[in-house]
């Protein structure tokens, strides 16, 4: 697969282009992009090509691939089937997404979606990939993601396990290597592989074709294996009806197992001969693993909070409805608890657990007050960046940026930065309207492809060693010496903000709003310079739950 074909474009130039096409480009970036366009004929050329392709895609609707409607669905009632199909596909798509996220396997849910299908024909499909467990795909296949809808197609899985929910309510767990022809919400054919079907009453009558055998499910759970042309079926619960080649249709009840040869008669065999895949088991395992790792991390945390170098440790679990976030550093000091403003409780790095705050809204922030003077500072946080919308995107910023106060943030180009005000009374040597301070950057540690990914970020200001260091996921990404004239030995925090900037000294609004478009799971501030190995260790102890 070829990607990023215009390698001569910088990530930012590429990002401008994408955002322009999506209508999401900020006014400042739009200016910058236009400057680039005036300057570079090549950029204009690329721009025109992008616009042209974009335009072709916009014009697709009339002869869109969505016209590929499954045969059995008839498009007759409507004056403009394509448009309706599209509308239905959209409604359908959302329905599918919602359903798969809820993990809702109630037949009612399925029936609801299915009734939409009968009202408006749709090419978006009749089933959804509801779970993948170590799934791998053949090289010629683009693979599937959880939540993908499936239409009439051949589903090929190289290895691992996949769960497919049909909109009839039937549930199929497939183990690779396998090849399944999906025909409709009520019918599929297993050409190869191991399959377990769970069919709730609402989906009774689901038909599974295997070799020369037709299996009709009568509300039950059964397994089917097809390997090297040899078929075998086993009923775990309820009953099924099978018809092998031209033989009489027969009912199989719980516990029955049959070998289904390509030629010759179906023969009864011992049950338990084949181990059929079970998605429920996988799901439970994944869930347990998640809980275990989170519990393990909570146990680790109980130790970490006793570190007497820890100034503050804010975790955002169960923040729903709360306006205060406790400082967990022991001994506890409620004076240093944080105040949550507008930031929303969201899922953190453990799926399904609200352990993070989102700072997407420009006003969102957590205000804190950490009094005292310190000889060094270490900032450490689990962060999920969705996009870098601002010139500077806040992690932790001291309010007034006064002498000795730190600013920890990420620049729009993905560079992690830590700075400390040296002398607010003195102008900056280079830019006169700024004050005397120095910024210490890492190389870019983030680009748009990492959107939504959880990262463990650490930055250290170490006056003793005269070093500023940045770490990502426990590994050092940069280390820079602090020049003599910029060395600050007495550090302060006082009033400050997580995820935004409280009292900027400049009026310019493009500077004033620095909210992070993303989430923070936790943040720790130490009054000491943590060593490389300590940082690696804390990361290793906390990463087990990383998603």
């Amino acid at each position, binding site marked *: 697969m*070829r990607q990023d074909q215009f390698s001569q474009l910088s990530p930012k130039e590429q990002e401008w282009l994408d955002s322009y096409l999506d209508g*999401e480009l900020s006014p400042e970036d739009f200016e910058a992009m236009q400057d680039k366009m005036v300057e570079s004929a090549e950029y204009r050329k690329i721009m025109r090509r992008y616009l042209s392709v974009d335009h072709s*895609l916009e014009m697709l*609707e009339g002869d*869109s*691939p*969505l016209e590929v409607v499954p045969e059995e669905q008839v498009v007759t009632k409507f004056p403009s089937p394509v448009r309706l199909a599209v509308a239905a596909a959209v409604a359908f798509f959302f329905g599918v997404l919602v359903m798969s996220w809820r993990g809702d396997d109630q037949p009612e849910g399925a029936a609801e979606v299915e009734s939409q299908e009968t009202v408006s024909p749709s090419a978006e499909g009749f089933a959804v990939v509801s779970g993948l467990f170590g799934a791998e795909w053949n090289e010629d296949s683009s693979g599937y993601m959880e939540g993908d809808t499936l239409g009439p197609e051949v589903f090929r899985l190289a290895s691992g396990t996949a769960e497919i929910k049909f909109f009839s309510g039937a549930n199929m767990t497939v183990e690779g290597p396998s090849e399944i022809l999906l025909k409709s919400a009520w019918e599929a054919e297993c050409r190869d592989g191991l399959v377990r079907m769970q069919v709730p009453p609402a989906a009774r009558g689901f038909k599974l074709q295997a070799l020369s055998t037709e299996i009709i499910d009568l509300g039950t759970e059964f397994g089917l294996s097809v390997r090297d042309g040899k078929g075998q079926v086993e009923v775990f619960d309820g009953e099924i009806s099978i018809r092998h080649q031209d033989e009489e249709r027969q009912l199989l009840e719980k516990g029955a197992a049959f070998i289904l040869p390509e030629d010759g008669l179906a023969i009864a065999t011992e049950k338990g001969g084949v181990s059929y895949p079970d998605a429920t088991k996988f799901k439970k395992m994944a869930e347990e693993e998640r809980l275990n790792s989170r519990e393990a991390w909570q146990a680790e945390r109980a130790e970490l909070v006793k570190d007497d170098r820890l100034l503050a440790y804010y975790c955002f679990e169960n923040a729903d409805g709360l306006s205060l976030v406790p400082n967990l550093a022991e001994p506890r000091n409620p004076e240093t608890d944080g105040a949550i403003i507008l930031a929303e409780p969201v899922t953190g790095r453990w799926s399904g657990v609200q352990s993070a705050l989102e700072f997407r809204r420009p006003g969102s922030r957590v205000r804190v007050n950490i009094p005292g003077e310190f000889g060094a500072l270490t900032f450490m946080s689990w962060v999920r960046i969705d996009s870098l919308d601002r010139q500077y995107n806040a992690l932790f910023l001291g309010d007034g940026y006064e002498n000795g106060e730190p600013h920890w943030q990420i620049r729009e180009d993905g560079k992690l930065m830590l700075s400390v005000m040296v002398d607010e009374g003195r102008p900056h040597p280079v830019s006169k309207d700024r004050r005397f301070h120095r910024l210490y950057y890492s190389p870019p540690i983030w680009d748009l492809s990492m*959107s939504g990914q959880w990262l463990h970020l650490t930055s250290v200001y170490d006056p003793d060693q005269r070093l500023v260091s940045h770490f990502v996921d426990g590994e050092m990404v940069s280390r820079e010496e602090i020049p003599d004239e910029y060395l600050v030995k007495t550090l302060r925090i006082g009033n400050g903000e997580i995820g935004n900037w409280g009292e900027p000294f400049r009026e310019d609004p493009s500077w004033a709003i620095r909210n992070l478009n993303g989430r923070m799971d936790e943040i720790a501030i130490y009054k000491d310079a943590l060593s490389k190995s300590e940082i690696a260790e804390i990361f290793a102890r906390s990463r087990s739950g990383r998603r």
Partner: protein
Amino acid sequence: MSQSETESSEEDLRYEAYIQRFTHCEPDLRRFIRSLLPTCSDADEVMQQTAIVAWRKFEQYDLETNFMKWACVIARFEALAYRRKMARDRLVFREDVFDLMADEGEEEIETRRGEHSALEECLAAMPDKQRNFITLAYTPGIKVKEMAEEAGSSAAAFYMRLKRLRHQLMGCVEGKISEANQIS
């Protein structure tokens, strides 16, 4: 045959000649206009205006010359007028950028056609699922952002997926074009 009847049949013929030419270059013209304005509906509006103005001026058009070029001049003028009206809106090109894009765009009509057919091939070669996704995202009235928001927790992934697919398509289009260039 009366005078007025002759006139009206002449008018009909002229209209037919116009429609034939305009219809022929409509897709190219629309694509050209689209590259100068921020959205599809802006392009629709200018396209409509261009069709009207071109018909009004059709009498001045020399049937022996290139209609596409002639219509391009009108389209560009209409797009510029529209741009001025819209200049305060978001993502409207500055006039210097607009002029550059229009100058160069006029010269690339053929290139655009090549890209379009390359894209059609690329789309056809795409797995159904990906194609459906991208088609859906580009359906008029569907905003990626809204789709993504509906999609809740995986909004970012959703956006990324669209971008990846678009880049993939661009890569494919690029590839086909450079292949074609090597052959010719």
